[in-house]
């Protein structure tokens, strides 16, 4: 399974499924990370402890451990 954490800088992916627990899933969704959304990797801190992605027109920061819960497919 490929997750958002595995992405390279500037790579674009499509979200397949959210494997997060309920609350976090809601948080993802309210920020636009949901099935079919297109995400682009912008920047990552050393070791991918935190990453910056772009969803639509919005830039988001999230932890690597949360990005691991987002199943994606490369475009």
């Amino acid at each position, binding site marked *: 399974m490929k997750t958002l954490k595995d992405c390279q800088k500037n790579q674009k992916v499509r979200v397949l499924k*959210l494997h*997060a*627990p*309920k*609350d*976090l*899933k*809601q*948080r*993802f*969704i*309210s*920020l*636009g*990370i*949901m*099935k079919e959304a297109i995400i682009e990797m*912008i*920047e*990552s*801190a*050393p*070791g991918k*402890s*935190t990453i*910056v992605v772009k969803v*639509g*027109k*919005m*830039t*988001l*920061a*999230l*932890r690597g*451990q*949360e990005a691991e819960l987002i199943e994606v497919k490369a475009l």
Partner: protein
Amino acid sequence: MIKEEGNACPVIANHIKVALVGQPNVGKSMLINSVSNAHLHVGNFSGVTVDKTEVLFDYKGYHFTVVDLPGTYAFTDYSIEERVTHKYLSGGGYDLIINVVDSTNLEKNLQLTSELMSMNKDIVIALNMSDEAKKEGIEIDEVYMSELLGIPCIKTSAVTKEGIEDLLDAIVKVGSQAKQESKLIFSEAVEEEISKIVAYLQKHKHEAPNSYRNIAINLLKNNKKTYARLHDDPIWTELQPILIDATKHIELHHDSDDIKEAFAEEYAAFNKGIITEVVKASTVQEKETITQKIDNILIHPFFGIPIFLFFMWGLFQLTFEIGSIPMEWIEAFFGWLGDTIGATIANEDIRSLIVDGVIAGVGAVVLFVPNIIILFIGIALLESTGYMSRVAFLLDGFFHKFGLHGQSFIPLVTGFGCSIPAYMSARILKNDRDRLLTLFIIGFMSCGARLPVYVLFAGAFFSAEMAGNVLFAIYIGGAFIGLIAAKILKLTAFKGADEPFVMEMPKYRLPSVKLIWHTVLTKTMMYLKKAGTFIAAASMLIWFLSNYPHNLELEKEFSSKIELASTQEKKNELTNELGVKHLEQSYLGTIGKFSEPLFAPLGFDWRMSVALQTGLAAKEVVVSTLGVLYALGDEVDEESSTLVNAISKNISFASAVAFIVVIMIYLPCLAASIVFTREAGGIKYFFYLFAFTSVLAYSLAFVAYNVALLFS
């Protein structure tokens, strides 16, 4: 019979109460500022930590009350802001909703709009930042959009003041119309289930204030209130199986076991439809935006952190360098005020209460205002430019190891200056648990007021060259203990799954002077009003405890001795001795004596115990108390060589080490404790903090004392 003078009282029908709702960073506050412009009257009614602001103004004979609610992405109770907004909107004490959306990012913003649409309330949409949208080549057909949604959509811009009047006109018009049924349309699967439920309700002629369709949608969305209302109705037994089937069907359709996710997808699909109909974006070659260019530097994997540290250094220089200038004036002013007023009061007890109790207490509160103002201007700048969320991104990697959040850094570093603004700045943490944990360890960052104590003891036991290193070690040690304490708390009291870190990094913006001024003013006033009254009362209590009971015999005995004394030196000595005797028999002294056995294992005498306890009022007081208790008068400071001598003579090295450890860790000063209690949201947290810091301070001091005994 209608009387003419009925006009004196504003007609109730002409009141319109509006809830202003929008996602964060859509320019909501800016918009409300330009709507109400000069007639602005801001009244605050604050919740625990987040404020809704009420703005009142008149327009075309209508009295408007606009309740500016904190920004929220969705109704997901994640942060305090979201909870405040959700609670207020569900409460229903308003006439209609203005939904402010960012025209440059409609797709994301409409997600909240959809949720609002299922609330069965009148809505007006403000397509805000329309000037920016135009610049970015985004064209929105607001007439068609109004028609599709069944909601008036008005293009507005807080910057160019475009559409402000249109927005107000639309509100007046909507307010005087009957409620329109929302035109939210779902996928076939959901529509099918809705019509099943609606048909069922129709069959049973169910009586309800809102439409059947609205009830059906809310039931499918698991809306608690709708459930509660229907739960006691006899039709519930038949309705329930229909609902269970419907939910299964919808979840199957969306390949998800989460009905909320399914609805979010429904909304997204609906919004996509709307956007393809009404938005025309000229497909200009996607070039790098200014935000991306700035981010290339500011969140750079290597340069990002040094740049941030430089900004912080600058902010602290400003806070404590520039802040100290007015602080001197304030100190001088309150000294003058005390002398002037004191001179007019004949009764000694009342004079002392007013001058040493009230004026000194209030003065101590006002003293921190310059620091607070400068620091909050700095924080408001960091926040309103959009840099704050970058900071969180940069530092989260390190702080998360200790169970903290990237943004914890700001309050923690502020804590080195003064704990009060530090506790207040912890509000930047949106999540309760992150904020509480941060609040608990702010005290470990030694504040400026503790410096005199450290300087005094370092000077008494170490050579001048070593003293600086010792000071540095104390500060770093405190921070280190704080991080360890955070980890311990995280593993025990704050156990549980990690709070997620998912946050928007908004576009960089030039801050608005008006808005920053407004924020800083509100926060400062809040500090003055709330903390001020508490702190003034508490300092009066401390004053009372250290001055009473009066021992008239003792005073008589000494005053005759002082009169008889031959030299001025002798007189001073006697006055000081009276001070010690008086303090010793005061309530505070009694407490000190009483608690002496408790502190004996740490090697403290009763004087040190009392100094620690007066330090609870303010850390600055520790040094002056020691001065009084070692009979030197209270005019001593940490540089006073006589006090340094007295300390190195009377206190053993091991006791001194233990004393420093306690000062580093135990409860922050009274003013800070009160602010902590307010920010944490309850008195119980104060007792937790008291217990936690006391136990930790005592046990570490005990260890330090015994280790130091081995070496000396």
